[in-house]
């Protein structure tokens, strides 16, 4: 996995609460057996009109925002289904950071493992960021700082996920390193293969 240190980008704002993973990537697109090409279908029901043309009113279709890497979304982003296709679709589209006042547990877990940084901010910070569509933002994971419109903000992030992102490490490798303890546990609790 690539190292994640800092990002500079414009902010794209999707101020809708409870954006669920069905909305991020519809179940029509879960029929693949790889991870490819999902960006095209990100937010498809909102992004495309009935004739399959881009909806000019949808924020990600507007030229100024199409290359944004930082998405600020309404409260409780990523609720619903456990589909990892949701972070795959966001990353494939070019989004590298999602910020909200609350982010669903499974989505958050899935995002970290793919190099997408989910950031939970306070209500006050959230309100501030929601008002800065199109402004430059920088995210510094090492120092856990956001800077937007000359305003510095700090954020909390789970320590291990941060460490893995900063160093480009796969969480799987850490788990594989625990194998002696895992085998010991299985022995202790009689959970070995019969």
């Amino acid at each position: 996995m690539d190292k994640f240190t800092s990002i500079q980008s414009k902010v794209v704002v999707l101020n809708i609460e409870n954006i669920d993973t069905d909305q991020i990537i519809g179940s029509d697109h879960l029929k693949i057996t790889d991870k490819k090409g999902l960006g095209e279908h990100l937010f498809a029901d909102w992004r495309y009109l009935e004739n399959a043309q881009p909806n000019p009113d949808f924020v990600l279709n507007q030229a100024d925002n199409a290359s944004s890497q930082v998405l600020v979304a309404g409260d409780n982003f990523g609720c619903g289904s456990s589909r990892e296709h949701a972070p795959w679709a966001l990353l494939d589209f070019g989004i590298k950071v999602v910020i909200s006042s609350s982010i669903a547990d499974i989505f958050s877990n899935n995002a970290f493992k793919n190099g997408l940084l989910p950031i939970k901010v306070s209500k006050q910070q959230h309100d501030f960021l929601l008002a800065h569509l199109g402004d430059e933002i920088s995210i510094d994971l090492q120092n856990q700082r956001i800077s937007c419109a000359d305003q510095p903000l700090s954020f909390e992030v789970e320590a291990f996920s941060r460490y893995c992102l900063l160093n480009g490490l796969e969480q799987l490798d850490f788990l594989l390193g625990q194998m002696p303890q895992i085998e010991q546990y299985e022995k202790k609790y009689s959970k070995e293969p019969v």
Partner: protein
Amino acid sequence: MVATLFEKVWDQHCVCQETEETPAVLYIDTHLIHEVTSPQAFQMLRDNNLKLRRPDRTFATCDHSTPTTKPNSLGEYQFFGEQEKNQVEQLKKNCAEFSVPLYELGNQKQGIVHVIGPERGITQPGQTIVCGDSHTSTHGAFGALAFGIGTSEVGYTFATQCILQRKPKTFGIEINGALSSGVTAKDIILAIIRQIGIGGATGHVIEYFGSTIDELSMDERMTICNMSIEAGAKAGMIAPDQTTFDFLEGKEFVPKGKDWDIAVSGWKELYTDDGAQFDRRILIDASKIEPMITYGTNPQMGIKIGEVIPSNNETQALKYMGLEEQQNLSGKSVDVVFIGSCTNSRISDLREAAKIFKDRKVAQHVRALIVPGSHEIKQQAENEGIANVFISAGAEWREPGCSMCLGMNGDIIQDKQFCVSTSNRNFEGRQGKGGRTLLASPLTAAAAAVTGRVTDPRELLARNDAITEAREHG
């Protein structure tokens, strides 16, 4: 030291406890997989030249992309398209390559993953259970710690039988009192989600307890735990009791004879100790719950069936639904009724629905689709005569699968159609692009099917009672 049910199960499965730097290494007893969220995880094993460590703790079925129509005379299933067929075939190949037992299409033990786990006794109290599916919370009804994971974690579980987790907080929901007639487990959970909100339990494991829960069957407890995720919860749990043990005894995968007695005595220790504290706690009076129905685009947007849609500034949701604030849903014409899904496709759900369908017909403008959760349930419903009640009423009686809950297999509703559904999510487009889902219990769904409108099922149940009484008194 006193502990909650969750803490007892958690502690028993920590290979390494969490520290400030690292999450806990949590051992997984049972890993359930299906065709949609597993292919990339199998590929991860191949890419890293890894083995699937514990095929004996891994169980596979196909349910999401599978057709619910019968196979043709040659035994061939008619998939919606090539992608769906390919996904199911891929699962079969992957399971063969990595020696994972698979309940494949056509197998009499196949069904929705969260239905067959308990049905086969794969699900047991005190276990940790994961599956690449958010409704894995269902299995918590047995006092297991069960939750949905993403495909990366499916791969980690394949490779190590463990995942990395931060310890969630706990949320006690105490529910006391008797349920009124016509009120079901589905109404309880919809009422809870309405109260605490769709993100209300994020970061928490819910434990449900109280006199109402004690009286519920395992099917009903599963309905409640199933929708814990719709309040954002990591998992939902209910302490195992005699109802749990009676349900499990004799099932295929549970211990037998003396081992059964040993297992039960261990399971009896799985409860929240007196004095153990939840991080958060609420109390619910079950006698105040009435049949619920949703009007919006997430499961917290629910009302008692006779209430009007509240004025909550849910403009986008109401626009999508074609509904208005202060509108009464009762009497609203519906196009489709779906009875099924991991929430409400078990035998007791079908028995409830059959009470309404019996001696009635599906309204002429309504398509009613009834999809049992497993072959075993389908067979049982046919043996009990329930299937015939549905078929005589004019409903479609299908093969088991997830079906119209998320419409991956082609069972979908059309743009702007209203569907009263016993499933778990009313998200935009969930049951088909532009489709409008009203979540409700099997009783309420059946009532909509036979009247063609949103109807309080208690009206029809009362008529049933009146007819029975008239017959009894000649």
